[in-house]
């Protein structure tokens, strides 16, 4: 065993950054605020890198106990941190992508009010996210789980003077709370059945009892899934994520694409010992995942706001990861989590660069022809688009293909799930290239006048008019992420393509190396099919948005019903709105007016009137004279004493 790794420093340093910027940041110069925030993320990244390079000499899982958190009767929970292979990957993604996005933000947010506040929240997010992935028990994971939700709430509502932003923040928090409700119930069940919430304790008991199948394990698993659907924006709780685009774009990249929203996938993978015992729950996860992937992709087809397209795309991609977990191929889920973190962070940041260039414009209908004007953004975004579309040898191809392959061969999966995934892959490729063509190709459709930026990022800024490329501080992270989006998939090249699938080997101590029924031949065929489908998506987008740009309008006209349904996002928000309204009506009229004012207060008044005598008394003592109050008080006390004394002696003499 090597010396202590000091894992506690990883979350605590960003927390210190949060405290500094949060408490005195308003009075500090911007450069200093930036410095504090960046260093508070850079140090954990370097520490993680250091751990990574010395991983060979560390025995995993490595556990660090920092003391007791709660100890009450039979219940006990510690501040315990853990490092294993899964945590290692999450740490690299969170600190690596997190640091890049911090750098980018220094440029993107340079002209914003509340610069210090933004970086304080960003560091707070890092603190909670690192707590989430480092925890060794469910209760501590829940700290990170709710905490990232808090950071998300604060950052979505960053432009809090706008109603839409404040609403979106609240919606995100409350919808996530519905998921947390599931997480809490799962923990209650675990406390009841295992008497502990530590991973090692829970998993050891499950392993020791091979006869436990389904039953209460399924109940726990289903409640955990409810939690995961909240955080990872799956059906039925995905509705908060598109609205979360009200936050500044770097936030969308960091929290709502690369890290926080993957917490649900991480949690399922972390708890795989339990999920493996409940095939029923796994099937539910797979179905939710595939359905969400498809459903969100269809909505993404017609959105016109560049960030909303990416938001629905994120929901859809998270669906793939869910699907992977559902077919018990946690490795491919985590693999896609990693590549997705690269290319989706890249896409959001590039979109941010576009928005920056257009002084806050997010509507793709008024973009176009930006290819030459912002070349770095264009080329990096191209890398992201190709990666997410699943065209080899870019990152998304390998991870998505692995998920589709696993869905195809897994006993939990099947051809239907695979097919849904494949259709979604076509849709993904189509809507991403649609975004690409609309933004960068054709003639500029910008209206040369000051437009109303309401409902957008509010990213107006001071320096000159005209389209301009972003400064190096923003394009730098773009380039790095673009490179990762190109080569990131090479860590998981399957044997069928003469690779070694390093990530699967790396994660095998956590997930085991289950080789199931497939063959290289099937893998190869499926890979060819997905490639063709991806190219078909591109081709379709090329025709509709490049070769014959008048076609989409006609198509929307002829398929009016479907188009409107998609544009209105299946009216799911309205449906939820109805539920909320029903709750409010019941609360206001039934509970408040009828029960509370009518029955509870009514009986109170009846009782009050029967006690009119007290009323007279209180009215008399209401003289405002302290001596009279004191007099009344002592008189009352005396009467009380006398009465009780006689009452007592009388009672006693009776005995």
């Amino acid at each position, binding site marked *: 065993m090597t010396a202590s790794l000091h894992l506690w420093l990883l979350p605590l340093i960003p927390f210190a950054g949060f405290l500094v910027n*949060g408490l005195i940041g308003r009075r500090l110069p911007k450069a200093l605020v930036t410095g504090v925030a960046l260093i508070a993320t850079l140090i954990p990244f370097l520490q993680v890198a250091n751990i990574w390079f010395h991983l060979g000499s560390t025995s995993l899982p490595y556990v660090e106990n920092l003391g007791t958190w*709660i*100890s*009450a*009767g*039979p*219940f006990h929970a510690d501040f315990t941190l853990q490092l294993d292979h899964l945590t290692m990957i999450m740490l690299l993604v969170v600190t690596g992508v997190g640091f890049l996005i911090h750098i980018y933000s220094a440029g993107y947010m340079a002209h914003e009010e509340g610069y210090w506040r933004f970086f304080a929240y960003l560091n707070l997010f890092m603190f909670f996210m690192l707590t989430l992935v480092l925890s060794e028990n469910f*209760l501590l994971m829940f*700290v990170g789980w*709710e*905490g990232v939700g*808090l950071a998300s*709430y604060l950052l979505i*509502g960053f432009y*809090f*003077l*706008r*109603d839409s*932003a*404040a*609403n979106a923040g*609240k919606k995100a*928090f*409350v919808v996530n*709370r*519905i998921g*947390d*409700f599931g997480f809490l*119930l799962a*923990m*209650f069940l675990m*406390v*009841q*059945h295992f*008497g*502990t919430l530590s991973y090692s304790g829970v998993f050891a008991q499950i392993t020791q009892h091979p006869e436990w199948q389904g039953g209460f394990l399924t109940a726990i698993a289903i409640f955990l899934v409810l939690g995961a659907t909240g955080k990872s924006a799956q059906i039925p709780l995905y509705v908060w994520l598109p609205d979360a685009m009200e936050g500044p774009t770097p936030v969308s990249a960091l929290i709502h694409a690369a890290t926080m929203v993957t917490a649900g996938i991480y949690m399922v993978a972390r708890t795989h010992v339990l999920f493996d015992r409940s095939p029923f729950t796994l099937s539910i996860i797979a179905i939710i995942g595939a359905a969400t992937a498809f459903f969100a992709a269809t909505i993404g087809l017609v959105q016109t706001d560049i960030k909303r397209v990416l938001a629905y795309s994120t929901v859809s991609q998270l669906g793939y990861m869910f699907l992977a977990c559902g077919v018990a191929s946690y490795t491919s889920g985590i693999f896609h989590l990693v590549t997705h973190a690269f290319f989706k962070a890249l896409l959001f940041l590039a979109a941010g660069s576009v928005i920056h260039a257009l002084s806050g414009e997010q509507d793709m209908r008024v973009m176009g022809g930006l290819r030459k004007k912002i070349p770095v953004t264009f080329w990096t975004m191209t890398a992201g688009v190709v990666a997410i579309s699943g065209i080899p040898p870019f990152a998304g191809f390998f991870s998505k293909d692995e998920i589709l392959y696993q869905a195809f061969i897994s006993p939990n999966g099947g051809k239907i799930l695979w097919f849904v995934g494949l259709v979604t892959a076509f849709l993904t490729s189509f809507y991403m290239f649609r975004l690409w063509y609309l933004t960068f190709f054709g003639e500029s459709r910008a209206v040369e006048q000051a437009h109303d930026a309401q409902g957008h990022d509010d990213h107006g800024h001071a320096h000159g008019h005209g389209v301009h490329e972003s400064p190096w501080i923003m394009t730098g992270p773009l380039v790095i992420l673009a490179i990762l989006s190109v080569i990131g998939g090479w860590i998981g090249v399957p044997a069928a393509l003469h690779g070694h699938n390093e990530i699967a080997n790396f994660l095998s101590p956590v997930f085991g190396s289950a080789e199931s029924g497939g063959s290289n031949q099937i893998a190869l065929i499926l890979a060819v099919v997905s490639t063709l489908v991806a190219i078909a998506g591109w081709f379709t987008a090329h025709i509709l948005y490049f070769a014959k740009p008048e076609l989409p309008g006609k198509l929307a006209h002829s398929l009016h019903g479907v188009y409107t349904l998609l544009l209105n996002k299946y009216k799911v928000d309205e449906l939820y709105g109805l539920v909320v309204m029903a*709750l*409010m009506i019941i*609360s*206001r009229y039934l*509970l*408040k007016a009828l*029960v509370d004012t009518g*029955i*509870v207060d009514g009986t*109170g008044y009846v009782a*009050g009137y029967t*006690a009119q005598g007290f009323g007279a008394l*209180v009215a008399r*003592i*209401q003289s*405002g004279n*302290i001596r009279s109050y*004191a007099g009344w008080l002592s008189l009352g*006390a005396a009467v009380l004493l006398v009465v*009780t*004394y006689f009452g007592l*002696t009388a*009672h*006693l003499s009776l005995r």
Partner: protein
Amino acid sequence: MLIDSILTLTTFVPTAGAVVVALLPRKGRIIQWWTLLVSVVTFLLTLHLPAHFIYGQSGFQFEENYAWIANPAIRYHLGVDGISMWLVVLTGFLAVAGCLASWKTVETRTKEFYFFFLLQQTAMIGVFVALDMFLYYGFWELSLVPMAILIAMFGKERGPKTALKFFTYTFIPSALFLVAILYLYAKTGTFDYVKLQQALTANGSLFTADALGWVSLAFLVAFAVKVPVFPLHGWLSDTITDAPTAMAMVVAGKLGLYSILRFNLGLFPAQARAIAPLMIALSVIGLLYGACIALVQRDMKRLVAYSILSHLSFCTLGIFSFALSGLNGAVYQILNHGLSGSAMLILIGILYNRYGTYELSEYGGLAAKTPWLVTLFVITTLSLIGLPMLNGFVGEFLVLSGSYAHHAGWIFAATIGVILGAAYMLSMVQKIFYGPESAMITRHSVADLGFREHVILWPMAILMLVMGVASPYWIKAINGAVTGLADTATQTVTYTADHLPADHLPADHLLEKR
């Protein structure tokens, strides 16, 4: 250094202070400074208790026990255990906060205000430390009087009416409570808590089951009104709305909840177990009911009043779960609520002080003008909605997870309160601080928190964090005391076995296995 008769000192220093207040001239801020001094001294005295408390020892500590009146046998018996000790400290802490919070809000009739304010402190501390039923009852009744008078005096035009309501609600059950105490005395010949406990648990032949049932019910109703437990909360929202901040902070919760723990669980465990299913049902209903009504309130102080109803229901839920961690969580939640609920009332008082209204619709977009106010408001909100790492979560989690094993259905419902809690609190934050600036906010130019307000609120905020991460410091004392209660409760299992669910014991053992 161990001070003898520390409890007497702590209890009556505020009374002595009140007497001096009556003699002080109404000039400048002399009365305020004096009251502050008395409150700080009292608080420091209360801190003596945890410093010298012997952990891991059950029973009462710092006891003082003298004969007071020979016949009837009334003793001057004081003492604290792990539960009441922290409640005494909390009372001392809130007295300082309450005094500072009233500093500029109470500008008229200051002498009356601070006189009764200090008297109220004695009454509350007395309730927590008295171990003689008669003495206890004296403090209990005393706690109603200054409260009612201050509400009548400071509650604006509706004050007298609200005071009457409060007084009627709390006084009528207290009268029945007194009868029950006297009945116990007549049967056992003692008012002393410890002796009563022995008499009640050891010698069942003194009472018929029926009579004891009625006696315990008289106790319970008096306490449940004071908590309040749904549906006895009719007085709460008016009282919270009309009472001065320093009084609203202490009017609900701890007195009633402590008394339920001490007397209903301590003296009548079998009866408490018998009525537990009803109390758990009422707690969960009250929890959701309060949350739903808070959701549609347009007046922020009423919103907080219903949130108080909702939060306190967690405590009754934990108490009547009879699970060890549930009881621990309930006591911890009393402390949490005393801290965070008070901070919320102070914050709302600050808003009222600046803008003169509790109407949520008048507010909007305040965050930009008052960054510190919004920061502390949000921290307090997060504590109240149970964000992990803050105090509220520890209590809520222990209550819910501890009770889950035996009451899964009710706990399932209660956990929905976690969602509703976030919804109504964040809606309030949004309406006050976010969105476009309202006309009223634009019209006024209002400063952020002042020095005095920082001094009140930051210690409270820091304490929320500390209590959220270092709960063992408090719970090690609480655990000893509630273990005693849970044990008393199990002793009687044999008498009341038919009331228990069949799966009761095995599940308990499962928990204790680790």
